[in-house]
């Protein structure tokens, strides 16, 4: 048992998260879990919205957090904590039947994207950029979940292929192919709009 614990400790030391925090969170310390998760919240929410859509991104993330909290005692430290939690999010997002988030009610309008975050100097340019953003988002939504997640983690989060592969539980080569294929499809779909 002592050997097993020291192996686990060694593995966890290889990750980016401080060992005492992880260990405390594994024992059920809610504050420690908070401190582990909060710095990742922005990245997690971005991916959750990418996978679940703007309507149910937050619900998807909340479900992933609940499952992560429940499953943390079984986290073996084979990968970093953020890869592990992203993996949970990815699996939830790729199997819609596992998770059914709330859908917008009839007549309910999604406001994200309609209201700009800030006003730019050139409204014409703002409209063009927003239009392009919408088209890229629409093209992303049509990608398979694995390719979408891999491209997001590569292009938005800047992860290396090894870490993406660990999160998606696949090989590095398969991850490269997924990113490559995603980029090719987006290029084909967006055509001359870029």
């Amino acid at each position, binding site marked *: 048992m002592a050997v097993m614990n020291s192996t686990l400790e060694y593995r966890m030391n290889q990750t980016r998260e401080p060992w005492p925090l992880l260990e405390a969170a594994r024992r059920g310390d809610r504050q420690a879990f908070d401190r582990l998760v909060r710095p990742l919240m922005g990245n997690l929410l971005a991916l959750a919205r990418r996978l679940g859509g703007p309507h149910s991104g937050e619900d998807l993330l909340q479900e992933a957090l609940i499952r992560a909290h429940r499953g943390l005692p079984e986290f073996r430290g084979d990968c970093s904590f953020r890869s592990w939690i992203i993996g949970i999010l990815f699996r939830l997002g790729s199997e819609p039947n596992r998770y059914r988030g709330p859908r917008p009610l009839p007549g309910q309008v999604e406001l994200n994207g309609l209201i700009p975050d800030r006003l730019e100097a050139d409204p014409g340019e703002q409209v063009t950029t927003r239009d392009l*953003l919408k088209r890229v988002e629409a093209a992303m939504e049509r990608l398979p979940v694995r390719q979408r997640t891999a491209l997001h983690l590569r292009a938005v989060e800047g992860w290396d292929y090894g870490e993406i592969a660990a999160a998606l539980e696949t090989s590095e080569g398969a991850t490269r192919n997924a990113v490559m294929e995603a980029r090719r499809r987006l290029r084909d779909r967006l055509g001359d709009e870029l």
Partner: protein
Amino acid sequence: MTDESRTPERCGFEDRVIASFLDGEPGQDLPEVAAHLDRCPLCADALRKARAIDAVLAAQTRTDVDDSVADRLLAGVDEAARPPSVPRRRAAALVRRGWLAVAAALIALTVAYRWMSPGSPGDPEAGSPVAGRNGPVGSSSPSTSSPSTSSRSPSPSWEPGHDAFPVPGGSSVGARQPERSDFTDLELLARLKGDRVPGFNRKAVADRVQELFESASAGKSVDSGLVVEATRWQLVGVRRGLMPSGRLLAAGRVLLGSRGSLRHDLVALFREHENLVRRLARSRVGRDRVDPEVVGLVGALGVRAVATRVSERAGPQVDLCAEQAMRTGDRRCLAFLVELYLSAARRSDEARRERMAWFKDLVSGSDATLAHVLKDKLRRTRSQEIRTLCEELAERLGLPETCAFWFARDGGSPPEPGTL
């Protein structure tokens, strides 16, 4: 690097160029790739677009989460971490609905009991009201709603041919059954339909589903609606590889023992996932091993793709298969039986004669459907041998219109009597 694969639309080296320049992984051949990029406008355009896509994605999805949002999201973790004894809103609503349904069912049964047997409240034989069920909580079927009928058989067993499962001892199907699990049937139903029930994980559901199937096969009281949902859940689980295909046998046993609307529903469900049954048949109906339940299931569903395998390898179990096919009795099952017959008939004259009598006995009374099946077979086949066998079968079964159809289609004339 050659430009042989180059087409007007696509160069063929875009991915390599992008991997070298955008992913910052130059590798050994960077000068070569750079030289190619200089002279290839297609690759230059692809690289520019890939960079634009990455930039747009990075700009669009940068999400800053303020503390209130993070607090709200993490509050869900606290709520989920509470002990199961603290009912959450959904579970509470579910339980409330469950109790309401049980109460409604009890009131309805009491009223029905008093109305149907006015003089019997003091009669000890009429003292245990029984709910016959074939659907949602509270519904009852005329065949089992009479208390006196069921009270005469203290341990009623579920008979094939009845849609409803009798409920022994007057227990309500929707009621909590603590000896089986901590979760009610209503919670199981909600979970099977995809709702979240706290603490009810996949393994617990799988165990409950298995128990449910075993109870149904053993003639215990189960809700047919629940059986259908459990079968659907298990089929989807097997299809996704979350559980072994052998788990389907329990649901298959329930199907084999069922009739009426339950059988109809289960057959329809299994047919949606027919490839799973085919896979099961290929692994469990072999030269050295024949699983009778799988053979029966194949017959009940009428899986034509494995008719030859069953005919060649099932031996005496073919009768079980045919019996199940006739119990379902639809056109697809008759087509399956025709395939069984043809498969045997093609092997030898002796088998043909033997199977002809067998087939005639089996399908008597299904002339109209069988005529359609044979017409369809004749329309599709190109084998002269099968045509002759079908024609002979049609004649022996007394389906002259089938022969007429075929001869009219081919522009030939009917054969001389006795030549077939």
